[in-house]
């Protein structure tokens, strides 16, 4: 796996961009400034980043209710995303979708989705189209440990494996389906074992090691591009915050959360340490990336706040093609 220094710094920047976006979003929400509610990706940045680094704009992803990380990693703009969170006309979905329904077809983002597990059959359908049209593009579907119990998981994997569709299944196992710990919602520990049930390869990786995620994704995506069909990649990770912002998190201990947030487990300081140790980046270079992104986030929020609200006269627009 030969990743250029430039590419690795890009990946660091992407992870930090997700971290900064989500931290700012959490802050704004707790200040009462954001409508709706948000499910943030803090702690899971390496998964979206490592996977999306193997994809181009013509590859497709389906995302989840916890989708800001995937959208950013796939090239989504933080200003248009904040505008969507604020419910503004200038948002990705004209203020009509909100946090859980951000999509940008030009970037191959087929949408975050508020229904747990809904993305898998949709990504399978996208993969069908990509194969039918004789492209070498792939679809990637992100989903959690909770979603891996849904019928959609089984139906989509069954269909994709039987038809050898170019779709990669990426399970972000953060140990909890809503408030229920993994050991209480499924009988297995490594979700990747379910791949055997569909006659395909399943791998489990450290989801907080962006390079390990990249390596597994690159292998699976290359295999899919060549017509090898789907792979199930399980990324073990952890969400720093609750299921939604404001979640009292009674179902997990402070000690557990703090352990996962330590510098040797948190994917971003881990990667920074790696970059410094291997002399791929200097302290100054990393600091510069962070400052740049911090400024971008400030500007993105400003853009959103200053954007116009949608016009209620357009309420029905978008229900049908002719409206």
């Amino acid at each position, binding site marked *: 796996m030969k990743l250029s220094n430039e590419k690795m710094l890009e990946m660091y920047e992407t992870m930090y961009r997700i971290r900064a976006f989500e931290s700012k979003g959490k802050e704004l929400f707790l200040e009462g400034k954001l409508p709706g509610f948000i499910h943030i990706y803090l702690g899971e940045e390496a998964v979206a980043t490592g996977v999306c680094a193997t994809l181009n704009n013509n590859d*497709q992803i*389906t995302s989840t209710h916890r989708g800001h990380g995937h959208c950013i990693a796939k090239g989504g703009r933080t200003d248009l995303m904040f505008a969507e969170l604020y419910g503004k006309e200038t*948002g*990705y*979905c*004209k*203020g*009509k*979708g909100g946090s859980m*329904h951000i*999509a*940008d*077809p030009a970037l191959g983002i*087929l*949408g975050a*989705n*508020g*229904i747990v597990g*809904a993305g*898998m*059959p*949709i*990504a*399978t*359908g*996208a*993969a*069908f*189209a*990509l194969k*039918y*049209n004789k492209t070498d593009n792939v*679809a990637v579907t992100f989903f959690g440990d909770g979603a891996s119990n849904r*019928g*959609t998981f089984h*139906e*989509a994997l*069954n*269909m994709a494996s*039987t038809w050898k569709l170019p779709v990669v299944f990426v399970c972000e196992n953060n140990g909890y389906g809503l408030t229920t710990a993994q050991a209480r919602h499924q009988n297995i520990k490594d979700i990747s074992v379910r791949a055997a049930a569909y006659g395909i390869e399943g791998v489990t990786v450290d989801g907080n090691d962006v390079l390990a995620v990249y390596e597994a994704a690159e292998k699976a995506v290359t295999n899919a591009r060549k017509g090898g069909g789907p792979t199930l990649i399980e990324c073990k990770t952890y969400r720093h915050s609750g299921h939604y912002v404001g979640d009292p998190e009674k179902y997990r201990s402070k000690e557990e959360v703090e352990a996962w947030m330590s510098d040797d487990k948190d994917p971003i300081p881990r990667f920074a340490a790696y970059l410094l140790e291997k002399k791929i980046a200097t302290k100054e270079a990393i600091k510069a990336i962070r400052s740049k992104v911090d400024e971008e986030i400030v500007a993105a929020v400003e853009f959103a706040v200053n954007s116009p609200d949608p016009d209620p006269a357009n309420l029905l*627009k*978008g*229900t*049908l*093609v*002719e409206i």
Partner: protein
Amino acid sequence: MSEIKQMFFVEAIRNAVELEMRRDPTIFVAGEDVTEGGNYGEYLNMVQEFPDRIVDTPITETAIVGLGVGAAAMGMRPICAMSKVDFMMVAMDEIVNQVSKFRYMYGGNVKLPMVLHASFGVRRQAAAQHSQSLEAFFTHLPGVKVVIPSTPSDGKGLMAAALRDDNPVVFMQNLRLLPTKGDAPVGEHILPLGKCDVKRDGKDLTIVAWGGCVQESIAVADKLEKEQGISVEVVDLRTLIPLDLDGILKSLEKTGRLMIVHEAIQQSGFGAEIAAQVADAGFDLLDAPIKRLGAPLCPVPSSPILEAAYLVDQAKIEAAILGFLR
């Protein structure tokens, strides 16, 4: 003058699919048993002409509709062959939370040109889970059109229109019409969606119906005209959503009395929505309260005697008309 041919109901609908698939390479059919031709010949022999485009799926309705959503979002035009409307219920989350809402939630950035194709209705004691008329569920959704033809020619024209519409369309064929044969154009034939059709002129009473109830109502109307001089106008809705309210009101200007007849259970059937809209917009046209005739509130029973008691048929339509006019 274009060439006309006698076609069976399903045959005419299939003909539309064939013509559209020849014209539009983005159309494909995915569903259970479709290479075998579908349950009632919906895709009979089509796999010969379109080997890559008639796709057998596992028995996984959720994934079939999800497949359609993903493919449509990528610019294809899938026909999700759902077999019977009863089985569409398995995929209701996909239909309600994805198909119906995708375009809107994503700010109009995506469109889903797709057809969900299913049979519905009572036939040969298939019983509770294989005999239902569930079109009302789909009429409660924004972002979805609902089409139900009553003749072979209309079936062909409406399916062609559905396959040229860039919105999701639920297209359902009433199994009661399987034996029906009728004249249909041989070549390209397209009807507008959202327009009802007066299938029988009359002046005493308007019946609004769709699917097989149109034909049953016409038969009763002919009988009552002959025997008692009662003149019933039968309006074939053809498209439930978008609803052609103006077309219905136009008929009421003549008759002043409305009865809605559908094979579906009367409670919360689509007749209720029509009645409410007409009562609002057409109150001044009405000489009497609006009547609905639908099935009773029970599952479709299996015994032939019970099924016959359940089914909205000519005897019940006639009794309802006579009761209404008294």
